[in-house]
């Protein structure tokens, strides 16, 4: 079992609120208006899916929560509030580093390239532990010394205890350079490694003690994805953002990973934000889903509402493009193409492709209107000016 204490969920507020987010990319040809007023609320312990096609801005939205954006990304305006705290977009780098991996963590799409190729997999999981739970790891390291009594144990123990109390003392700085004495540093690392083996076991990795010593290139795609999940879980975050967690793996592996994620959501009371283009994934594991198009939100609601009774013309078009096995009906795509966001359509960005477009659609962006409980749409068909 792991030693890290479980997070006790605090008040019943929304765990994450994105308000009015406008974001641009500065490129050679001009500005790409990637996000055009995103409003999103994530409830605690839910599994929320964010779905959309190429260029809809779902990955950018996810990345902006942790401010992991490219250098040319400019936030025009908006707020991202986590657990009722400050606006993350204004937070200092130091504050963000405390949140990343510890309160909010992210699982990325490409398991092949998302792991450091020259570091053992177990160490990559342990890294987060040492960073965010340093003190616990030191304590565990001390326990290890007491149990196994290696040479110089008294000295090392002493130094470690000092590190807990006076982390920046001069004695430590000196001790960390002297050859045999500096071995004290390995005990917390050892403790963290053992912990990471447990975490790997938790995500269903076979022979976790052996795998922890492996390098990423020695593992299969499914195993690498599990390592990414293990890294995200390591510090028991409140919110996990998974960016296309199963797009790079086979169907049979996908099922395993989805079940794992589902488990996380149910058992550990962790909130999951799943970014995907795959409706099947959303239908199976999400509670609510948000549909995005060209940097705007089209529709938000429970999965059953949005998928089975879609309101927004884009969502309807999307659902009609997907084939359900056994269905005899014909597929229909959506006319036209995704707009180029250097010069996006005005008003509702879907209007050029919409069968129900009215004159107001190109002039003004519709508000987010709640049609019935929990089901909201951004569309002039459902509201008056």
């Amino acid at each position, binding site marked *: 079992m792991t030693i890290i204490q479980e997070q006790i969920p605090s008040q019943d507020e929304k765990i994450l609120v994105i308000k009015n987010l406008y974001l641009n990319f500065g490129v050679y040809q001009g500005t790409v208006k990637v996000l055009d007023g995103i409003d999103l609320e994530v409830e605690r312990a839910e599994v929320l899916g964010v779905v959309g096609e190429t260029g809809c801005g779902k990955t950018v939205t996810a990345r902006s929560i942790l401010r992991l954006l490219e250098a040319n990304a400019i936030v025009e305006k908006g707020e991202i509030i986590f657990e009722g705290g400050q606006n993350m977009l204004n937070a200092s780098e130091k504050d963000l580093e405390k949140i990343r991996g510890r309160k909010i963590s992210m699982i990325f799409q490409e398991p092949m390239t998302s*792991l450091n190729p020259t570091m053992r997999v177990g160490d990559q999981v342990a*890294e987060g532990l040492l960073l965010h739970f340093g003190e616990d790891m030191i304590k565990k390291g001390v326990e290890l010394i007491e149990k196994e009594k290696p040479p110089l144990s008294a000295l090392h123990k002493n130094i470690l205890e000092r590190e807990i109390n006076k982390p920046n003392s001069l004695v430590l700085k000196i001790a960390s350079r002297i050859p045999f004495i500096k071995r004290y540093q390995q005990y917390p690392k050892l403790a963290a490694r053992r912990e990471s083996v447990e975490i790997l076991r938790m995500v269903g990795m076979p022979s976790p003690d052996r795998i922890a010593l492996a*390098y990423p290139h020695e*593992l299969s795609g499914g195993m690498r994805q599990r390592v990414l999940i293990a890294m995200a879980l390591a510090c028991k975050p409140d919110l996990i953002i998974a960016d296309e967690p199963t797009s790079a793996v086979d169907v049979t592996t996908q099922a395993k990973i989805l079940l794992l994620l589902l488990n996380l959501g149910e058992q550990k009371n962790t909130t999951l934000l799943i970014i995907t283009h795959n409706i099947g994934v959303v239908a199976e594991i999400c509670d609510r889903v948000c549909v995005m198009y060209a940097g705007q939100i089209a529709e938000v609601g429970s999965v059953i509402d949005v998928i089975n009774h879609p309101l927004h013309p884009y969502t309807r078009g999307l659902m009609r493009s997907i084939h359900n096995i056994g269905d005899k009906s014909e597929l229909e795509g959506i006319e036209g193409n995704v707009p180029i966001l250097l010069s996006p359509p005005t008003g509702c960005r879907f209007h050029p492709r919409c069968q129900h477009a009215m004159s107001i659609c190109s002039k003004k962006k519709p508000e987010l209107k709640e049609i019935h409980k929990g089901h909201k749409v951004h569309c002039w068909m459902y509201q008056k000016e």
Partner: protein
Amino acid sequence: MTPFKRYIIKRIVYSVITIFLIVFIVFTISRSAGDPVTAYVTPDTPKEIVEIIRKKYHFDEPIPIQFVYWLDGIIHGDWGRAYGVGRRPVLELIGRYLPLTLELNLYVLFIALPLSYWIGTKAATNKDTWIDHAARILALIGQCFPQFFLGILFLAFLYRGGWMVINPNFTFQTITGMPTIDALLDGDLQGFILALKYLIGPLIVLVIGSLSMQMRVLRSSILEELSKDYVMTGKSKGLSKDYVEKKYARRNALIPFITLMGFWVANLTAGSAIVEVVFNRYGLGNVMAMAAKATDHNAIQAFTVIYTVALVFSNLVVDIFYGFLDPRIKYGEKR
């Protein structure tokens, strides 16, 4: 046998083959260019004497046979006489001049390597700031201006300012053959300063050349690593910008950086010959240039062997070191 051991053995075998081939090719060229006897005789030498000399040195035999004789001599310590460059045994020449080149290259190594590491990192992590621009402009200058040009430039400045000498008279004892070290060993402070002044001209030029190359390589490979996904993963775990830049990106960027050090040695060996000539430093490169002008095959051949061995050996070391850095090489593609 682990894949790594196999890798090392393979590299060693290739290195040996490479050295052999290069030495043989140079040998063939130098013995084929004109009549090798002419180095040993003057136009007045009577024909019979010429024939005797020709037979003595096996110049009448086919080249591969000559090569075998030559190899035999090498193994037994007879590297011939440098008839074009002072008539001393080649081995003696090497003993006298090699240390000076070695000294120069070592100084360059110990200065340029850490400097390029530091500047390269700074430039990459401060991309597009003035630090970056300055570093890149400097690198450009270093790479664009040929070494003899920089050499002459510095020669003019440094010599006038009394910062350097071109014909030193060393009074201390020769132990290692390297002036700065010998001076220190002998306790001769004046001599040490003199030795430094003898060193500084070539040193600056070579350092500028090496710096440019290495710094740019490190910078671009760090930038490339920084754009990779695993760096984003690291950041998402809360690792600081500094940590991710150094422990993630730079550590993995060292792989191409170190690979290039193999080339660097090549550059150094070639470059040091030029600066030695310009600054009148009596190192191996300088002597080699003289030998080439005089078509002194023994000397040319011997120097070629030394350079080739040095080059191939350094590449071999780099390759093996490379294996330690990159677990994909060390452990092979396992599953």
